[in-house]
């Protein structure tokens, strides 16, 4: 779990930071890198102060409690330098036995709380005020991420209670961030020059390095979500690799047919789409279904990012919705189709989660609930920021580039 935690942190910094920074223009590269880095810092603090307690404290089906405010009580189990395993949902009717210390569990979950708001930054790249980003990260982490994480992952959460499953964050992380990204792109508006000026990527080498780090880090994300070094973790690792590989090939093939050339940005985008889609399913499905999930994700995310987006005319700059929102929805739904019971069977539930029409509908319910909450609250947060400190830099500042205007630095 220690290794998995470090791997997931690597996904945001440096992985996502480089992935996004490579796709913006030269004048916004530092600003984009700083966004990921700053979100990492802010989300860590918010998680420590209240996020963890609200998300994974026992509380009610709707929200956790404040028993871990400022991480109070996290040292209760310490004795002679050792920390006993704690129980998620302790005191509820449905406690989940854990085999890891709470400090590690809390830190592992923190890395998820970091990458989720960082993913949203892809939608508003090159035009959002840094101050607005800081406030947005705090509010969104507390009002959107924490409740949804509680609903889906807490043993007593009401969405989990519907029977919906999310192994490593397809709903909590990817649908949540993708939908928030779409709403942000719509509220903040298009970049100046979108559709007629050259907004081509500054340095795809960065993007490739970033995507590669994401891929490696994803093993911590998915295999780590098994909560132990066991067969289920191994299967999650295997399905992750297969879905990423097939996703990369599928996107590449789709654009090869559509645009006549297989591109570097295409293959890495497809691999990320495959990784996103397998995330909710990783510990529930076998390798064959992982291949199908990766294939569908690669093709549909290509369609969403390269065909649907230009047709609808919104500027989700780096495709937070096209890749994460779309891929997350595909993965969440297909988990309900392909789940293989024995992987998730326990003594209390000997059948495990089995793919069926019923399970598919449960998954669809969870997807819809997340979308509705995320749309409403994200919209309100953005409007609040817009009316108070403002969301977007001025026209001239945007043309000059965020690196100089917001941070007083530039790359040569």
């Amino acid at each position, binding site marked *: 779990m220690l290794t998995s935690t470090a791997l997931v942190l690597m996904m945001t910094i440096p992985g996502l930071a480089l992935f996004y920074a490579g*796709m913006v223009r030269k004048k916004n590269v530092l600003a984009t890198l700083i966004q990921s880095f700053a979100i990492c810092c802010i989300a860590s603090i918010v998680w420590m102060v209240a996020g963890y307690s609200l998300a994974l404290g026992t509380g009610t089906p709707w929200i956790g409690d404040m028993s871990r405010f400022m991480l109070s009580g996290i040292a209760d189990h310490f004795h002679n330098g050792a920390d006993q395993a704690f129980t998620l949902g302790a005191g509820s009717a449905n406690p989940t036995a854990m085999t890891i210390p709470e400090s590690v569990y809390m830190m592992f979950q923190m890395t998820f709380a970091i990458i989720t708001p960082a993913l949203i930054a892809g939608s508003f790249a090159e035009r959002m005020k840094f101050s607005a980003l800081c406030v947005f990260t705090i509010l969104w982490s507390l009002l959107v991420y924490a409740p949804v994480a509680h609903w889906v992952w807490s043993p007593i959460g009401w969405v989990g209670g519907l029977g919906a499953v999310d192994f490593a964050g397809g709903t909590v992380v990817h649908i949540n961030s993708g939908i928030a990204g779409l709403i942000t792109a719509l509220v903040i508006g298009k970049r100046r020059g979108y559709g007629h000026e*050259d*907004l*081509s*990527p500054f340095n795809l080498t960065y993007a490739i390095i970033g995507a590669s780090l994401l891929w490696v880090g994803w093993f911590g994300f998915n295999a780590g979500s098994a909560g132990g070094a066991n067969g289920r973790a191994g299967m999650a690792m295997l399905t992750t690799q297969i879905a990423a590989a097939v996703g990369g090939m599928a996107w590449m093939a789709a*654009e090869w047919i559509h*645009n006549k*050339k297989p*591109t570097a*940005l*295409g293959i890495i*985008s497809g691999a990320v789409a495959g990784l996103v889609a397998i995330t909710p399913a990783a510990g529930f499905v076998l390798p064959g279904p992982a291949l199908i999930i990766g294939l569908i994700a690669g093709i549909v995310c290509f369609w969403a*990012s*390269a*065909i649907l*987006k*230009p047709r609808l005319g919104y500027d989700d700059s780096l*495709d937070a919705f*096209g890749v994460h929102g779309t891929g997350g929805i595909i993965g969440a739904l297909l988990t309900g189709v392909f789940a293989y019971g024995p992987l998730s069977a326990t003594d209390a539930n000997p059948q495990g989660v089995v793919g069926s029409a019923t399970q598919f509908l449960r998954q669809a319910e969870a997807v819809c609930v997340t979308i509705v909450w995320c749309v409403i609250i994200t919209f309100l947060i953005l409007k609040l920021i817009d009316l108070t400190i403002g969301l977007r830099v001025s026209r001239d500042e945007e043309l000059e580039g965020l690196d100089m205007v917001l941070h007083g630095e530039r790359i040569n």
Partner: protein
Amino acid sequence: MKLITAIIKPFKLDDVREALTPLGVQGLTVTEIKGFGRQKGQTEIYRGAEYQVSFLPKVKIEIAVADSIVDEVVEAVLNAARTGKIGDGKIFVSPLDRVIRIRTGETGDGAL
């Protein structure tokens, strides 16, 4: 004396240099440049977004030569830089009034 300025595709630079050496060309100046002619740039596609790139990377070669070998040099550049596709470039020949070697102060053909 003439100054031959050739705008060529970057990957043809080595071929041109090899073609010039046997002709007794003593030196040449190479500059990485951008521009367009009838080719009018190219289209790049990133995740479905098309961008028109009008200034393409090219290489400019400048060669000062004696009048006696001008035609041979032009012919050599022409053959070495040609791919037959649009965007192969141009060769300009212009008169050269004076050439002075800075180290020795030599002038004219002797300074080439």
